[in-house]
């Protein structure tokens, strides 16, 4: 049986990748951190550290709930109703994706903070922005595209409109149809998205640091990075590792439980041949709410960021006399431009590799898929700096100063982003389709190529986009691992600026955004030629 042989080969590949990317580096790390016994770990949990753990947990759970609800609402709106300006709305929902994590909190304080845009123009500010509520909102807005992409990828695998229409025709109200048909079928995608959002929030550092420190609010990541600043002391370094290990354990346990729940049988039905979009027009209020939220949560902070990047010096009012494009020149000197190539190469390579790994893991079979999905979040849950230290421990002597060591670390970190969307979609793919194709005489290759891959294409695109953008923005891993010829754009620009000059940091963010926009434009051109690769940008 060809299937069986290839399934075993896929298993071999997955296990090898798990060993190289996760097991060995994490084992090296744990050995260093726990070498002194469990005392350090317990010390990390007890005392003031306990508060940070609780904070991380409830913030991440709140973010996950908010982002899933908003992402689901957005996906229903753009995919299941004929909403006006659908393409523009899709792009606007995805826009937070292009704002690097290290400036998202800053863009919000600039928009709604005590001296932000809204204060300048209207004299109002967002209460609670500095503190846990602000952290939850800003992280949730950043996580919505993640949830949205995966849910849309999941929705597109199968043409539910048929089933929804059938339910409605049989007399079900739209809420009943949503609750009993759409939601159960989306369950795997929701689980896939929820796990990623949860771990991403646990891992977030920039936002809790900027919005949390003034309120004296700590999370596990702010504790870890605080200790890292004193990593020359053995005690602090061990605490960095034991807190990180603890964070991984907590994150993966929760994701594991959710994945087990999500791993239950999903109803599988045939494929629709009818038109995809359902005819139902979105009610006017839904469209209005969507655009209002998008404007307030995405466009205004983005505008504040661009205005900051254009301001001559921090603290000057954004009036024409104070605006300049010189910051981009300062951000983009020859050195930085040279490193743009490294950034794009790393991001593209990691995106391809993560998607391939995701497909291989998916091919390895559905029985273990939930557990496999939990396991790949292991390395995703490790804070970037700590994962980089693990890679140095595991591969430093062999791969020092190469792009390969950064690439391996990126792949370990972002594998989950490539895999979980694909797996969330594949769970809803009926094996019958493959059998039917095989029974009709197609070779395994032909069956996969003509039946499975086209159906998975939106999820593959979602995974690839997520990995690419995250890798392009990545700075915490690469700043530990780069060598004389392997600096990335973000590392170089962050190094060039003084000490956290917000004007130059904003300029860097805008430059990275432009790179993403340019590549997305190129991707769109490709998509026009090969529509099946359309994904969600189409």
């Amino acid at each position, binding site marked *: 049986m060809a299937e069986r042989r290839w399934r075993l080969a896929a298993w071999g590949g997955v296990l*090898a990748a798990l060993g190289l990317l996760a097991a060995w580096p994490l084992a090296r790390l744990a050995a260093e951190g726990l070498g002194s016994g469990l005392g350090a770990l317990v010390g990390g949990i007890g005392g003031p550290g306990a508060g940070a753990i609780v904070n991380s947990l409830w913030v991440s759970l709140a973010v996950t709930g908010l982002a899933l609800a908003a992402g689901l609402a957005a996906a229903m709106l753009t995919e299941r109703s004929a909403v006006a300006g659908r393409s523009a709305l899709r792009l606007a929902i995805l826009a937070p994706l292009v704002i690097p994590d290290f400036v998202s909190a800053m863009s919000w304080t600039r928009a709604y903070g005590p001296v932000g845009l809204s204060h300048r123009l209207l004299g109002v500010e967002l209460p609670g922005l500095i503190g846990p509520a602000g952290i939850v909102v800003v992280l949730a807005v950043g996580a919505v595209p993640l949830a949205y992409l995966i849910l849309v990828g999941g929705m597109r695998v199968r043409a539910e409109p048929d089933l929804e229409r059938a339910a409605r025709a049989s007399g079900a109200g739209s809420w009943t149809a949503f609750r009993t048909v759409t939601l159960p079928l989306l369950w795997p995608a929701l689980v896939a998205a929820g796990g990623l959002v949860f771990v991403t929030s646990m891992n977030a550092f920039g936002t809790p*640091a900027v919005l949390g420190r003034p309120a004296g609010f*700590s999370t596990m990541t702010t504790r870890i990075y*605080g200790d890292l600043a004193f990593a020359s002391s053995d005690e602090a370094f061990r605490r960095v590792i034991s807190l990180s290990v603890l964070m991984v354990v907590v994150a993966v346990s929760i994701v594991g439980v959710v994945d087990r729940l999500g791993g239950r049988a999903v109803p599988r039905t045939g494929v629709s041949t009818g038109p995809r979009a359902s005819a139902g027009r979105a009610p006017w209020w839904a469209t209005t709410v969507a655009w209002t939220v998008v404007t307030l949560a995405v466009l205004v902070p983005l505008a504040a960021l661009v205005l900051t990047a254009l301001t001559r010096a921090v*603290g000057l009012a954004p009036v024409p006399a104070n605006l300049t494009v010189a910051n981009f020149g300062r951000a983009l000197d020859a050195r930085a431009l040279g490193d743009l190539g490294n950034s794009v190469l790393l991001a593209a390579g990691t995106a391809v590799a993560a998607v391939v790994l995701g497909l*291989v893991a998916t091919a390895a079979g559905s029985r273990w898929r939930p557990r496999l999905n939990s396991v790949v979040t292991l390395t995703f849950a490790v804070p970037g700096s700590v994962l*980089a230290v693990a890679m140095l421990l595991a591969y430093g002597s062999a791969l020092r100063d190469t792009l390969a060591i950064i*690439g391996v670390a990126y792949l370990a970190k972002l594998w989950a982003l490539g895999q979980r969307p694909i797996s969330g979609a594949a769970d809803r793919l009926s094996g019958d389709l493959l059998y039917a194709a095989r029974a009709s005489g197609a070779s395994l290759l032909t069956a996969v190529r003509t039946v499975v891959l086209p159906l998975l294409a939106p999820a593959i695109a979602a995974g690839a986009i997520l990995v690419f953008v995250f890798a392009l923005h990545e700075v915490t891993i690469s700043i530990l691992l780069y060598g004389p010829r392997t600096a990335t754009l973000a590392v170089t620009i962050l190094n060039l600026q003084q000490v956290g000059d917000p004007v130059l940091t904003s300029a860097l963010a805008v430059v990275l955004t432009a790179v993403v926009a340019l590549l997305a434009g190129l991707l769109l051109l490709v998509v026009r030629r090969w529509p099946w690769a359309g994904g969600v940008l189409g």
Partner: protein
Amino acid sequence: MTARVRARRSRAPRLCPLALLAALALLAACAPVSGTPVSAPAVGGSPGPPRGTLRLYSSVTQDTIDAVIAAYNRQFPDVSVEVFRAPTGQLDGRIAGELRSGAVQADLLWATDPLSTQSYAAKDLFRAWTPAEATSVPAADRSNVFWGTRLLNMVIVHAPGMANPPRDWHDLTDASLAGRVAIPDPGFAGSAFGALGYFATADGYGMDYYRALKANGAVQVQSIADTLTGVAEGQFLAGITLDKSARDAIAAGSPLEMTWPVSGAIAIYSPIAVWKDAQNVVAAQSFVDFVLSEDGQAAVAGTGWQPIRADVSGGPAVDGPQVAPDWAALFDRQDALLTEYRSIFGG
């Protein structure tokens, strides 16, 4: 290899491990071909002129590193200096990883503050020797394995045009500034920790100083830069920050004023040291000699930092007295100090 992969692919599904291997191979192939991390043949016994590759690990600002290397290369054109620059935490993370998987892969360490340098010295990771200009460095700012190169001064910034601006550290606890003072979190940066270290042990301050700040509604911000941003934008009236950062922001046009505290700016020295396992000792020592020389100090001063040598001019104005934390006494007290600080400011 490529041909084989292609041949297999033609009759196998795409989801095969070979594709994964190919992807990993591709990734590896993207790596630069250069296989010369640390070179420079050891010059046995008689040190010849420095040449080869010199690897520098640093958290010093990039423009200062660039300026000093350019000046160094004018004297020693045969040395190619490779720099790994990162903020202190990331730099120490990399060093921790390398130490535990072999040895530090650099010849030199040029740090921002003495905290990490001290702990590496305590582990005997540096080479003991005597630079030509060692005694030009004030005795408090050097040891037998590392030497201060420049001074960072913690000062007060405030909003422009204040009728009664803060003149000294104690003024930050004045009721007129209630709720409008920013202090950088000492848990994130060595320079901010230096301020904590000074206040905690200085006469007339102690941890009560932080209690008074907190009682007056002072806000802890993440970094030195956040202090500047917050004051420049009007969220705060005053704050604690670095003189060079404040001067740069003012020069760029930010609405700020800087005050040199009457009782003294808190001066933090930035040490340089040669790693014990250095591959290119000759070049490393010539670099340290250069940074401590008049030319090297002039290059440091040219980028806006106060040179460690009082006899070198060209640096920024030093507008008043300077005080310094007793770094040796702070060594190993980080946890205790930060814990006490956090019991006041939270986190």
